[in-house]
């Protein structure tokens, strides 16, 4: 479930912007991100789906940027949000009660 909607974190940023697929920890998927250089000379990428922001120090070269994005992906794949975990537990509880004949 997107946790932020239609927020343009880049609104005051001027200069270069580019779109790129980046792994979003919130969406748990590769999503389109808008990336730019912010006023602190850091790379800011924001998810087009949920608005989650990802900041990286300014890379030395393209390979450095790619390696930081890869590390971000590896570190964040597989997170299970509390609401998803709770929904799964509720489903299992309901199934168990049904098996036990408890209404």
């Amino acid at each position: 479930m997107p946790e932020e909607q239609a927020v343009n974190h880049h609104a005051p940023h001027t200069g270069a912007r580019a779109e790129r697929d980046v792994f979003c920890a919130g969406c748990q998927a590769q999503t389109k991100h808008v990336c730019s250089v912010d006023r602190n000379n850091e790379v800011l990428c924001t998810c087009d789906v949920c608005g989650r922001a990802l900041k990286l120090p300014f890379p030395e070269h393209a390979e450095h940027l790619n390696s930081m994005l890869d590390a971000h992906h590896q570190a964040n794949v597989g997170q299970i949000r509390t609401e998803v975990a709770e929904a799964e537990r509720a489903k299992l509880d309901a199934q168990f009660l049904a098996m036990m004949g408890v209404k």
Partner: protein
Amino acid sequence: MAATFEFEEDNGSATGSPAKGTTRTAARTEANWKNIDDSTTAYSSSPIVAGNNSYQKNQFGHFSGTFNQILNGLFAHTATAFGTGLTLKGVPAATTSAGPYTYVTPSTGADSGLTTDMTSAIAIGSGVAVWFGATGPEATGKAATMATNPCYTNWLTTQLQTTSSAAAGDTAQVTLTLQYDEN
């Protein structure tokens, strides 16, 4: 009998090898992100300007008392959502004896060593693995199970990164959880 636990915090320039902070403070009871690297200034006195990042919060766990083993460490943001424009970054999972993170002199620059996105509250089972060392969070020889007493978790460093869309005022009070077993 059981282990005695407390959070502790390092601040100041990186010193020594392996690196640690210049100052180590015991018995920390809060982990407020702020625009200063210390364990004493109130966050309201050093607020983070929207669009900037906090200084890293270099906290860790310290075990003493009576125990046979400390094991199965996990660390995660487990309750309460952050508002718009706020991203919490934390240490990656521990996988080597050197630990997942090396202490750096705190700054407000985005720390590329903090690769875990802790913004969303997740189940603790999805948290990053925490290993334990004998002499400090900076110690080599960390392991997933530790029998040495006292012992310490690896760094549980976090940094709050903000965009210009972050609202003024306090953030929501969130819960970060360190879970472990003791034998």
